[in-house]
């Protein structure tokens, strides 16, 4: 017993050492030989658990040759690697799938609910299996203890199982959660598993060889013994079970979490599959080669009540071969521990990725500063999950009493985890598979499995009452756990497999056909199903140096050579390397992404970096993020453009306004200077003459009267000027109210003519009025209009220089306007004066006729207020002014 303990501890230390060394070599990058196809093949042996090592013999001794089916199924899957495994591995590597739950969830649009369902299914299916391993080890230790007449007893067994579980948890946490590898590879664990695979095989072959040659005496004798065996002499097999078990073992080979982990996740090179395709069937062939001989000999030589599960141990022991027995024990120990370690890693990955992290991320969104936080949380979650999973296995072991119930659990577990098979296979081959279909299929399969296999496995009356067994659920005869739809007589396992898988598949197909997938689902579907069209042969393993260089080239293109090289060299120095290329560690990649995102945006930076480092095409998620960013940038630049156009327009408007203001200012200055000039002139005369009157001593009455008249005239002139100014300003400010009344145009003209009184002048103006004027009645401010006419006629009188001046006034209606032309026969206005003449203080000549030059300006204002205007008409016989105003002021346009 002590020898056993010593040997076991030595063996365990060896495993730790191997795992540690392997990790070290992997980290330093020199691990080419670690990743050989043989290591890969041996790691697949984790399929052969203690159930294989011990249980196969027991199975054979009890029920014949069915045990073979457990290995024929996986062999078929490996033979057919071209069909399924090749695609699975390619998909797994391309999309960085981390577990089977990840595969399913990722295929169906990164659905978290599917991930959760698959994870829960896996945990429920695997926990009993872990308990089975603990039981095997405990029983095998018990064998040795009993051989020394020192049985462990109930407490001893529980304690043994407990300490083994703790040891396994320790090993798994130590080597399974060292760091967060983006590929989820655990080099140390894989090497340890490979070593255990060799030990397993060697042990079983040794025991088998001993049995055949040591006990039976050769191959020929062995066959005789077999044929003469009471139990195993004749070929007996239940046909439906033969077929069903081959199917379910093949399905489980693909769907078991630990198998997916070593087949797909830990796969380093697709070409390893080629080797494994024949090497793994060879391995299981060798493992099952000696099962029947051992069973036969055990049944013959060992007492009748002996547990056939432990023949592999008890046979050598009973024959005195203690060393062989210890070797055999190590084999069984290896089988059990390798299964538990890999299963714990796979399950903890699923639990942390699909259950814990989504919840944690949702609640800790704001506190998430760096991904360093996330990594720590993930690792912690994994470690806790491993502990919990092993604890659950231990609890199950305790509760089940370690009896025969556990042995059948193996197949129950297979059937349970296989419920994801339709969704998985459908997902990788059929683009029409949808998330709803997968959920429907898996849930239905899961429910049927629970009802027909899992719950009944606890025994009648434990979970399901016996009335459910015999009368059916809710008393419905068609819902009996072992006879659904009333079909009786089927073996319970076959019955469960049949109903759960077929209804699962039917539901999956029908619901997929009826539902419409989301865009994410469709994209993922295309990527998964057509994976061979989108990817080429995989990158070789020695990509690390090449990756760093590629990263440098890309960074140079974006950041510029100097900045990129500085960044890389700094990172390399911090990593303790003296070259200019750092190792593409997660920290460095993060830093690089941060630098790049300043230039190209975070999503683009991430996509570019992961393309180079991952060696895989960019994920749909990344692409959508890049598209979002680009759209945002486009939108931003659009708004910038609009804004800059507006700014331009505003600047233009401002400059125009500035020009106008400058002009107005100039005008104002001119106006002020004009006014002061105009006012000063009469004031000067008034002052001068009043001084003369005051100072003159003797003056004749005639002289006094003359001077007084001059003063009087000048004041009148001043007054007129001021009146005009006031008038004009009032008109310009728009504060004047029109005094509307009705009248005849001809009358107004007559009035105007009379006021001007041309007859008093030396060259009287002959005024010819168009008779049309009599016909026009207007409703407007008649006084103002008269003012306009007076102004024009007076101007004509003043400035017409013909010998016999004639002024013709033409009138016509023009829509709602009256149009009048005042044409004289003089010289007309020179061209440069034509526009200017309507401005304030513009006069022709110097001081001619004593006007201030405001007349036409006032006319313009008045006529504008009356809805019309005034203008000069060129090319008439003389000066021609056209006047327009509304006929009816109340009906303005």
């Amino acid at each position, binding site marked *: 017993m002590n020898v056993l303990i010593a040997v076991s501890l030595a063996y365990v230390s060896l495993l730790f050492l191997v795992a540690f060394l392997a990790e070290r070599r992997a980290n330093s990058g020199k691990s080419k030989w670690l990743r050989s196809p043989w290591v890969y093949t041996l790691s697949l042996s984790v399929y052969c658990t203690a159930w294989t090592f011990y249980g196969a013999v027991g199975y054979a001794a009890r029920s014949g040759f069915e045990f073979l089916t457990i290995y024929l199924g996986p062999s078929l899957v490996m033979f057919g690697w071209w069909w399924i495994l090749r695609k699975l591995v390619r998909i797994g590597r391309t999309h960085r799938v981390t577990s089977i739950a990840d595969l399913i969830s990722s295929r169906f649009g990164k659905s978290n609910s599917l991930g959760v369902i698959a994870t829960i299914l896996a945990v429920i299916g695997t926990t009993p299996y872990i308990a089975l391993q603990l039981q095997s080890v405990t029983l095998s230790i018990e064998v040795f203890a009993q051989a020394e007449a020192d049985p462990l007893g109930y407490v001893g067994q529980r304690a043994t199982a407990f300490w083994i579980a703790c040891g396994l948890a320790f090993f798994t946490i130590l080597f399974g959660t060292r760091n967060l590898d983006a590929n989820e590879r655990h080099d140390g664990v894989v090497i340890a598993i490979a070593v255990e695979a060799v030990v397993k095989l060697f042990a079983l072959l040794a025991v088998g060889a001993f049995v055949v040659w040591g006990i039976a005496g050769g191959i020929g004798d062995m066959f005789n013994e077999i044929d003469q065996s009471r139990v195993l002499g004749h070929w007996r097999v239940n046909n439906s079970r033969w077929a069903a078990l081959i199917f379910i073992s093949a399905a489980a080979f693909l769907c078991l979490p630990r198998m997916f982990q070593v087949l797909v996740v830990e796969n380093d090179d697709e070409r390893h599959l080629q080797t494994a395709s024949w090497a793994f069937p060879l391995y299981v062939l060798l493992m099952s080669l000696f099962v029947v001989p051992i069973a036969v000999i055990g049944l013959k030589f060992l007492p009748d009540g002996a547990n056939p599960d432990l023949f592999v141990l008890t046979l050598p022991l009973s024959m005195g071969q203690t060393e062989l027995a210890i070797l055999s024990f190590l084999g069984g120990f290896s089988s059990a521990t390798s299964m538990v370690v890999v299963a714990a890693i796979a399950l903890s990955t699923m639990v942390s990725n699909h259950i814990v992290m989504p919840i944690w991320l949702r609640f800790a969104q704001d506190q998430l500063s760096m991904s360093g936080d996330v990594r720590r949380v993930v690792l912690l979650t994994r470690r806790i999950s491993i502990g919990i999973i092993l604890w659950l296995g231990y609890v199950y072991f305790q509760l089940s009493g370690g009896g025969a119930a556990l042995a059948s659990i193996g197949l129950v577990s297979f059937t349970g985890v296989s419920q994801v098979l339709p969704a998985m296979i459908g997902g990788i081959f059929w683009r029409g598979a949808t998330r709803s279909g997968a959920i429907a299929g898996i849930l239905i399969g899961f429910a049927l499995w629970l009802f027909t296999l899992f719950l009944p496995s606890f025994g009648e009356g434990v979970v399901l009452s016996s009335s459910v067994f015999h009368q059916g659920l809710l008393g419905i005869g068609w819902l009996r756990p072992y006879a659904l739809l009333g079909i009786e007589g089927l073996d319970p396992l076959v019955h469960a497999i049949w109903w759960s898988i077929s209804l699962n598949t039917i539901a999956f197909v029908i619901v997929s056909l009826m539902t419409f997938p989301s865009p994410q689902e469709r994209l993922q579907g295309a990527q998964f199903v057509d994976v061979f069209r989108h990817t080429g042969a995989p*990158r070789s393993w020695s990509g690390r140096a090449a990756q760093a260089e590629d990263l440098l080239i890309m960074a140079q293109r974006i950041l510029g050579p100097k900045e990129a090289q500085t960044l890389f060299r700094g990172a390399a120095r911090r990593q303790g390397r003296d070259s200019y290329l750092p190792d593409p560690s997660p920290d460095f990649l993060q830093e690089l992404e941060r630098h790049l995102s300043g230039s190209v945006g975070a999503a683009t930076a991430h996509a570019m970096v992961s393309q180079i480092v991952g060696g895989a095409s960019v994920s749909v998620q990344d692409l959508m993020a890049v598209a979002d960013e680009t759209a945002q940038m486009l939108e931003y630049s659009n708004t910038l453009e609009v804004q800059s156009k507006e700014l331009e327009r505003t600047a233009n408007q401002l400059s125009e306004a500035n020009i106008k203001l400058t002009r107005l200012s100039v005008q104002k200055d001119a106006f002020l200077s004009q006014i002061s000039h105009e006012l000063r002139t009469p004031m000067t005369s008034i002052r001068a003459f009043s001084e003369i009157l005051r100072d003159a001593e003797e003056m004749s009455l005639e002289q006094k009267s003359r001077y007084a008249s001059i003063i009087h005239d000048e004041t009148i002139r001043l007054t007129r000027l001021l009146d005009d100014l006031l008038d004009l300003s009032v008109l310009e400010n728009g504060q004047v109210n029109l005094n509307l009344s009705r009248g005849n145009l001809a009358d107004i003209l007559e009035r105007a003519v009379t006021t001007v009184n041309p007859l008093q002048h030396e060259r009287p103006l002959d005024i010819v009025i168009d008779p049309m004027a009599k016909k026009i009645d207007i409703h407007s401010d008649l006084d103002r209009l008269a003012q306009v006419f007076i102004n024009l006629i007076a101007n004509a009188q003043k400035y017409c220089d013909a010998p016999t001046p004639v002024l013709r006034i033409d009138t016509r209606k023009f829509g709602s306007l009256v149009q009048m032309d005042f044409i004289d026969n003089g010289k007309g206005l020179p061209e440069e004066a034509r526009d200017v003449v309507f401005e304030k203080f513009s006069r022709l000549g110097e001081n001619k006729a004593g006007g201030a030059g405001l007349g036409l300006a006032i006319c313009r204002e008045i006529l504008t207020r009356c809805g019309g205007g005034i203008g000069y008409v060129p090319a008439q016989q003389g000066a021609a002014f056209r006047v327009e105003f509304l006929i009816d002021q109340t009906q303005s346009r």
Partner: protein
Amino acid sequence: MNERQGPIFLDQTGYRGRRMIDALKILPVLALFLWAIPMLWVSEEGNQQTSVALIYLFSVWAGMIILVRILSRRAANMPLDDLALMRRYSGQSSTALEDGKGEP
């Protein structure tokens, strides 16, 4: 141009390779068929001796392993996927490093 006496069919290696891949694809079906035969052995007493049955099963098993080994060897020179296949037959080299592009 009929001076060549040899076979007229060109690209024999490529054709062979593809047929090897076909054989590889059909192999599991064959294995399944052979392993389903035990179901035909009626399970009455004294009908089938275990030793014969075991020899049969294990021989099929070993035979399949050898066949897969040979075919995988032959197919090892063939590219594993459509993309590299197309590249190979369009004259480009198929190295381990790929550029991730789609069909040419």
